[in-house]
């Protein structure tokens, strides 16, 4: 069922998920699977639907009024008015704090942090406030309507402060959910689920794919469930687990490995907390091997959590050590980015050494 990814700039090459309702439309350029669009357009469509379907929903953040620096909020202010879609002062702790207050009053709140690299001033509001709002009040209050969107990850020229993948920090915080989509279709369905989930969600968008990833996206209102991972490529020799933009690189490695006779199973985790352990466990019980790959630094990355869990659950079934192909333990570098990244060939080599262990 997995499609051929090839180069990212090619169109319609993403694995097609079984989720979502098929669209039947007479509009031009619309296939039975929906309209061909890139990831930022899919996000934009999800935001349109969210605002359309709930009059008590709001979208705000730095520069979102004119459409956002990545164009994700294009047309929203014009359509839904500046009281529901608006610019905020340049202050991340303010954006999230304001969002918590708005959500605590029963609204659906979609707050944008312009880059995940700049989410840290809001860390206290997310960790100490949003995540504990329900628990500390004995469920008298909650800010479950809050979704924080932030573009994350490498983009080829972002250096320290436009490239980071800070997901692991948030995976250590009970009370929030962390979601990362891999493609336009997934982005739309997962974002709508996140917005409507009654818990605060941090939704990281792979900015590398905003324009590069294009696939058919159903135009209707559909949701993809959270905390359910998906096998996007079936295989028998080794299980690969990843999320977001890294899956495209992993898929290329799977294809190259296949040429060398290695059958790889690729899993998109989608929701990092609370994560779907069962699907990974089932796969590793079948393959006996596990490789995890993410852009964030290897030490303390979420890959460590997956490795530990699978070793606990599948120790006797494992035929090789769990392999992690991740970012280096350095700040995200500019000119050294090609060296820092968990590239296709790094993954391919790790697949081979794990299979031949």
């Amino acid at each position, binding site marked *: 069922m997995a499609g051929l990814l090839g180069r990212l700039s090619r169109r319609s090459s993403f694995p097609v998920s079984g989720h979502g309702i098929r669209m039947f439309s007479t509009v031009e350029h619309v296939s039975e699977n929906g309209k061909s669009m890139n990831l930022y357009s899919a996000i934009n469509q999800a935001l349109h639907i969210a605002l359309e379907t709930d009059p008590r929903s709001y979208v705000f953040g730095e520069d979102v009024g004119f459409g956002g620096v990545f164009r994700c909020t294009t047309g929203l202010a014009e359509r839904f008015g500046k*009281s529901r879609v608006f610019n905020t002062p340049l202050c991340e702790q303010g954006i999230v704090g304001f969002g918590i207050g*708005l959500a605590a009053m029963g609204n659906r709140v979609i707050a944008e942090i312009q880059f995940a690299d700049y989410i840290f001033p809001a860390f*206290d509001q997310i960790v100490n406030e949003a995540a504990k709002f329900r628990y500390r009040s004995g469920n008298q209050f909650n800010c479950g309507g809050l979704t924080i969107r932030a573009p994350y990850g490498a983009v080829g020229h972002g250096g320290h402060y436009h490239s980071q993948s800070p997901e692991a920090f948030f995976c250590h915080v009970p009370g929030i959910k962390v979601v990362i989509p891999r493609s336009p279709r997934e982005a739309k369905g997962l974002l709508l689920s996140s917005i409507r989930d009654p818990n605060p969600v941090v939704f990281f968008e792979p900015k590398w794919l905003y324009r*590069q990833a294009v696939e058919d996206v159903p135009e209707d209102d559909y949701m993809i469930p959270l905390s359910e991972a998906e096998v996007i490529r079936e295989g028998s020799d080794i299980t690969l687990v990843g999320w977001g933009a890294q899956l495209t690189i992993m898929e290329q490695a799977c294809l190259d490995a296949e040429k060398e006779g290695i059958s790889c199973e690729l899993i998109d985790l989608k929701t990092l907390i609370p994560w779907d352990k069962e699907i990974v466990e089932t796969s590793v019980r079948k393959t006996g091997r596990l490789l995890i790959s993410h852009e964030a630094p290897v030490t303390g990355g979420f890959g460590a959590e997956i490795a530990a869990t699978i070793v606990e659950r599948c120790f006797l079934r494992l035929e090789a050590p769990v392999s992690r192909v991740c970012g280096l333990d350095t700040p995200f570098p500019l000119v050294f980015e090609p060296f820092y990244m968990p590239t296709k060939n790094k993954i391919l080599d790790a697949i081979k050494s794990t299979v031949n262990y």
Partner: protein
Amino acid sequence: MAIWFARSRSLVSSLRQNLGLSAILIKRDYSPRPIISKSFLGPVTSHRHESTAVEKHPDLVQPSDEEDVLELDFPGGKVGYTSEMKFIPESTSHRVPCYRVFDKNGRIIPNSDFIPVSEKLAVKMYEQMATLQVMDHIFYEAQRQGRISFYLTSVGEEAINIASAAALSPDDVILPQYREPGVLLWRGFTLEEFANQCFGNKADYGKGRQMPIHYGSNRHNYLTVSSPIATQLPQAAGVGYSLKMEKKNACAVTFIGDGGTSEGDFHAGLNFAAVMEAPVVFICRNNGWAISTHISEQFRSDGIVVKGQAYGIRSIRVDGNDALAVYSAVRSAREMAVTEQRPVLIEAMTYRVGHHSTSDDSTKYRAADEIQYWKMSRNPVNRFKKWVEDNGWWSEEDESKLRSNTRKQLLQAIQVAEKWEKQPLTELFNDVYDVKPKNLEEQEVGLKALVEKRPEDYPPGFHV
């Protein structure tokens, strides 16, 4: 940020040419993406370019008419020019005066500007201030006896607590710091409910998860206290904005201490409320001390009141130990916030007569006679009591009856609260999310088995 992006792109691009990296990068397209960068940089760079050009060529912008000579037409509006190079001084020659109604003996100063209160309201205000005093005294002692783990009094700040609460509508949403239990008391949270929270028992709405004094009640529009300082301020802006959008006849009211104004969230909260034109009343209890840190070590401004104007927020300094002044200021601020849809800042000057908390001994860092002065000469409860007594609305008999009854009720509440069992163990795992996820289900099963295996390792009183 955008500049960095532009630079980094060209840097990568030139390095790629120099180092021949493109061969390495073939597998992942590292080349700059004109479409992304164009939209990313477009509006920002064009602005920058224009302003830079003007700066470099001042001779090109010779004033062509009278208006240009007098005013700078800036995106934020027109600003008048001056030829005088004059820095704004760091402070005004006179400190912002403190609005009061009472003299130190609880007599209304002639020609004072205040909102009258009826006998009924005045008596209720006094009763609640006295009740808060008794509650603080008894809970403090209960902590000293080891019956509760922690406590924090409002001694010296009773007028701010009660008079502000009295000035508000029950629909106004409170986002407290932690030294404002009087607001909740005013709204009808019972002494039993306070006791249940402090004991963290089965009847505690917070289910025993937070330290004593972290009260919260959705019935009373009082959001649950959280320990981090100032986090409630930007949240108040969001709450206020919601009330505005729903066209409610209500505002958000949030409290903070003087130390809290140094937090980034203070800035965030005031600035967001101002920009979003949200009905929020910010009440700062400037009590002189943030644990052991004196206000002279906290900021160099004339307190907090002067900060309002910098945010475009109307503000007032009020004697926080003058219940009538607090009542009048908060009620007026509340009216402005709701009818004009704007935030208002109140700095209430007061003194933390008690220690910061039961974990603190404030005699180690401040003079005993300073505490004594505020406790005796500036006591807000005594001052208000004199006024209600002078009006013939309160007698010594009323006083002893109230204090004795409250004391009895509290001791009873403590006895009952102490005997209540704790929340069942399952409440450890509930409410992390709306529905318990699998990892928590597994951990719950594991923990219950462990407790059954080694009950001696765990405190008694928990239903497993």
